[in-house]
């Protein structure tokens, strides 16, 4: 790493993680501190926006201090501040945005509003060199998207969910199976122990479409459980989990493979919290094993929400000359871009 590489401080507060990271040269993570609120939200069975916002206010400067200390840098060493501008929970985003603005003002540093999903995609740059054109499969609690990137910082959304995000479907099915929040990891674990034996639908949508739909699948699971109960039959939760997961993974992987071939990409990147899912990871690996297309799956701590990914994406913005003013606001509907 050259010594004059830029040092970017990233801030992320779009949901229930308060995170700050210092990244050098867009790839070298000097610190990556995440305060998760999951324990607090568990009792409500989901993230409560007002409570998330309250936690962010209390954690923010603590995490900032820890990130700087761990990285052994001061604000004088920082070249710019990148912050998640959107999408996300507006009240939660506001804390990060206003903190970043105050920090930029206090030290007269450039401010770079950054897209959360651009962050998830650029998390891959922290573990591997990116080669364009590439395709990113973004799967998280709020997103299920296929993004084509012709070159650095150029995003084209080629497919997205028309109803529930994959992560949402996981949470709802988990609730039906009476699994604790967050449900995704529990379903993944059960699925490993069960066999795919319950017939469930896959929404391929119209021919050639790269969009997704998971609400039909979710309803089918709920109906299956309901009907079995009425008939006093027993379905093993492990088998139902395995069948549900197979249906989700099947659609995700098939569409990803098809898009990767159609767009003739060099790499396929997996991004977002659901990237932690074992079933999805192994199925993608299998499908791309004999392919010339390189598959990149970041380690878990770069898949879930973190600020290193925001600093990484912010570095691209910084190099392209993007500068946000002190009027920067939280934007829950922000369009994908740098």
């Amino acid at each position, binding site marked *: 790493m050259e010594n004059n590489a830029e040092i970017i401080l990233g801030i992320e507060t779009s949901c229930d993680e308060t995170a700050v990271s210092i990244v050098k040269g867009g790839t070298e993570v000097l610190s990556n501190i995440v305060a998760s609120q999951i324990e607090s939200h568990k009792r409500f069975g989901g993230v409560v926006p007002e409570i998330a916002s*309250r936690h962010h*206010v209390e954690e923010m*400067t603590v995490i*900032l201090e820890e990130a700087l200390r761990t990285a052994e840098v001061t604000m004088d060493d920082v070249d710019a501040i990148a912050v998640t501008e959107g999408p996300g929970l507006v*009240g939660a985003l506001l804390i990060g945005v*206003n903190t970043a603005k105050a920090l930029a003002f206090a030290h007269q540093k450039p401010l770079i509003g950054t897209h959360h999903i651009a962050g998830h995609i650029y998390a891959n740059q922290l573990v591997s060199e990116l080669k364009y054109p590439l395709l990113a499969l973004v799967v998280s609690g709020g997103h299920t998207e296929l993004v084509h990137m012709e070159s650095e910082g150029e995003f084209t959304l080629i497919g997205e969910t028309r109803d529930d995000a994959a992560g949402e479907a996981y949470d709802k099915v988990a609730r039906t199976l009476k699994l604790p929040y967050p449900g995704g990891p529990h379903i993944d674990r059960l699925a490993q122990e069960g066999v795919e034996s319950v017939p469930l639908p896959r929404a391929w949508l119209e021919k050639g479409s790269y969009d997704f739909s998971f609400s039909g699948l979710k309803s089918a699971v709920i109906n299956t459980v309901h009907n079995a109960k009425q008939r006093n039959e027993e379905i093993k939760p492990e088998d139902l989990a395995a069948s549900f997961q197979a249906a989700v993974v099947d659609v995700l992987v098939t569409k990803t493979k098809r898009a990767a071939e159609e767009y003739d990409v060099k790499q396929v990147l997996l991004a977002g919290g659901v990237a932690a899912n074992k079933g999805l990871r192994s199925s993608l690996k299998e499908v791309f094993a004999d392919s010339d297309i390189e598959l990149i799956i970041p380690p878990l701590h770069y898949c879930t929400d973190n600020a290193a990914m925001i600093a990484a994406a912010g570095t691209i913005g910084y190099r392209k000359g993007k500068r946000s003013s002190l009027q*920067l606001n939280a934007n829950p509907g922000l369009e994908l871009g740098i």
Partner: protein
Amino acid sequence: MRVLAIDSSNYVMGIAVMVDDTIVGELITNLKKNHSIRLMPAIEELLEEVGVKPNELDRIVVAEGPGSYTGLRIGVSIAKTLAWTLKIPLVGVSSLEVLAQSGRFFDGAIVPFFDARRGQVYNGVFVKDGTRLMRKNEDQIVLFEEWLKQNKDAHDQFLFISNDLLNHKETIVEILGDKAVLPPVSCANARPSELAVLGAMKEPIEDVHSFKPNYVRMAEAEAKWLASQEK
């Protein structure tokens, strides 16, 4: 001492800069506009106008609530970050105490309040003590009509200071009659200069990190959850 005072706890957005014993700049708007967009640029502009650089500040004072949850968090986030990163003291002052200052020469109960919907208000009670005010009770959220009935004999005169006066005027007059004093609207915007003065006198917060707004109320989900645990 150079003090920056910030209040974004309600529609009123206020910023003041005090240098030693002089208020050198004060900015107030009372608009239903976004504090998140406007507050930081307004701070920058005012400091520039009065010729104070951020690293020349000696103290940050913030209105800590009660008020709009989101508004409070914007002001408190900025104030905490500035104090922490500039390594200077942070002081929190009650938003109602700031508002009460407009009535500091009044003989009787000074009652600043903010509407909190469904017949409720956040209020506090203060009385004159020389040129300063003395707090008579903690900031609270009350059903206004009930509170007026319960407290009507506690004082001879009541001064109500609020931008929400119009909505509650009838109820106040109906219950208190001649005892109620309703000042003109020019008293109703909390003055950030008062915030700066109060904050200059108060002891700073020991641990900037743990400072949080005074919401007065628990988050609704939290209250419901606690209630369900008690069943």
